[in-house]
């Protein structure tokens, strides 16, 4: 019960800063849309794409834009040594992990609210699937991305090359999740029923569970310097 309260305060603080400055969210959405437009042009103006290529394009845009926001969430804690202040306070590392993951999750979701509609505007001509059918995939990827990402961003923020290292460390770990997500999205965009996606959604859920557990257990080690 006390944990929930602490997590709420930590999240509230981050979201308040985010809504005030809007730096992560705006840059995430902007960069994502930019990628979508670039890929549209790269694909050849006026050419239509099928579901598989569309799925790939959507996830490239989401992945690259999300990693921008992820880097900021942790770098902010490091700025004036605030992490140290949190570590001295009675908050536990696990609570910090959950709070950070939740903040990342909501930032991604907000960015996707912009990206997915624009994706359908740009590429949707030959895609028969319902945008809402993407929801379970989005939720699972956001979950996996934010738990893995929180752990990895704590690592990269502890080094001198935060911005470069974050994607280098994070993307290889996320490759299996992305593979599954692209496959599932392709099916969803081709208007296959949800039951057909089970083969992908189940391993994705497994990924989420495994990395949530690993992140929760390992986070205390990366947070405290040694």
């Amino acid at each position, binding site marked *: 019960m006390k944990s929930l309260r602490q997590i709420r305060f930590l999240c509230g603080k981050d979201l308040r800063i985010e809504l005030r400055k809007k730096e992560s969210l705006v840059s995430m959405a902007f960069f994502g849309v930019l990628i979508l437009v670039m890929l549209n042009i790269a694909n050849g103006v006026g050419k239509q794409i099928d579901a598989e290529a569309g799925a790939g394009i959507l996830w490239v845009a989401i992945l690259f834009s999300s990693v921008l926001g992820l880097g900021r969430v942790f770098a902010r804690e490091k700025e004036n040594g605030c992490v140290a202040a949190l570590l001295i306070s009675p908050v536990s590392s696990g609570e910090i992990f959950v709070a950070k993951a939740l903040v990342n999750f909501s930032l991604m979701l907000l960015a996707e609210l912009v990206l997915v509609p624009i994706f359908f505007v740009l590429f949707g001509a030959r895609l028969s699937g319902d945008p809402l059918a993407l929801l379970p995939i989005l939720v699972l990827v956001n979950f996996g991305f934010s738990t*893995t990402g929180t*752990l990895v961003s704590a*690592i990269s923020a*502890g*080094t*001198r*090359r935060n911005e470069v*290292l974050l994607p*280098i*460390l994070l*993307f*290889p*770990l996320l*490759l*299996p*999740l992305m*593979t*599954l997500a692209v*496959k599932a999205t392709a099916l969803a965009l081709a208007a296959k029923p949800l039951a057909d996606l089970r*083969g*992908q959604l189940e*391993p994705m859920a*497994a*990924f989420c569970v*495994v*990395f949530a557990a*690993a992140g929760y257990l*390992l986070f205390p*080690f*990366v947070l405290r*310097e*040694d």
Partner: protein
Amino acid sequence: MTTFNRSALFPGLAAVLIPIAIGMVFFYSPLEKTMGSVQKIFYFHLPLALTAFLSFFVACISGIMYLRNRQRIWDARLAASVEIGVVLTTLVLITGSLWGKPIWNTFWTWDPRLTTSLILWFIFASCLILRSAIDEEGKRATFSAVMAIVGFVDVPIVFLSARLFRSIHPTVIRADSVGLETSMLVTLLVCMAAMLVFWVGLYKFRVSLFLQEAMINDLQTDGTKS
């Protein structure tokens, strides 16, 4: 003198076993009917893959042990096995595609095993990059321990997701289903033994090199202090 002998045991054994193994591959084992001479790559491809996997397993265990008792020796073991694992996986990927080219007429195919190896290569190579980016010993050890653990935890999901790719020849690599001839099996086992002995020698050499470098480093920093 006895310590010298003991440290030379594995390299010496490897120096004997590896020529024998190569000799058996070329002069003892029979030509495979469908694939011909290229199949002989297999005798070292498989042992390389196994030792690579062994390296990552050792890295994960070392990571866990380091986080539990924070002794330098475990960091040395982790560093050694990650580095050796990346070298071996590189060779697995090279031999794999050299084998694939004449058989499947393509250097690269998204076969589950190849994909798994590739993703593992990415994960552990990123761990090496991380190590090179951190100067503080304790931090480097903790962070790379976490990455090694997370990377290894990722393996089953990587394999699960890689199964989604259509495979051209899913069973060609499987030893048991091909039903190896006895002479082939004997050659394979000798090669495996040779690689394993080589691996142990290499691993011990790398660990001791790491420890020596760290100790010299200590002496030098102490020297500048006083």
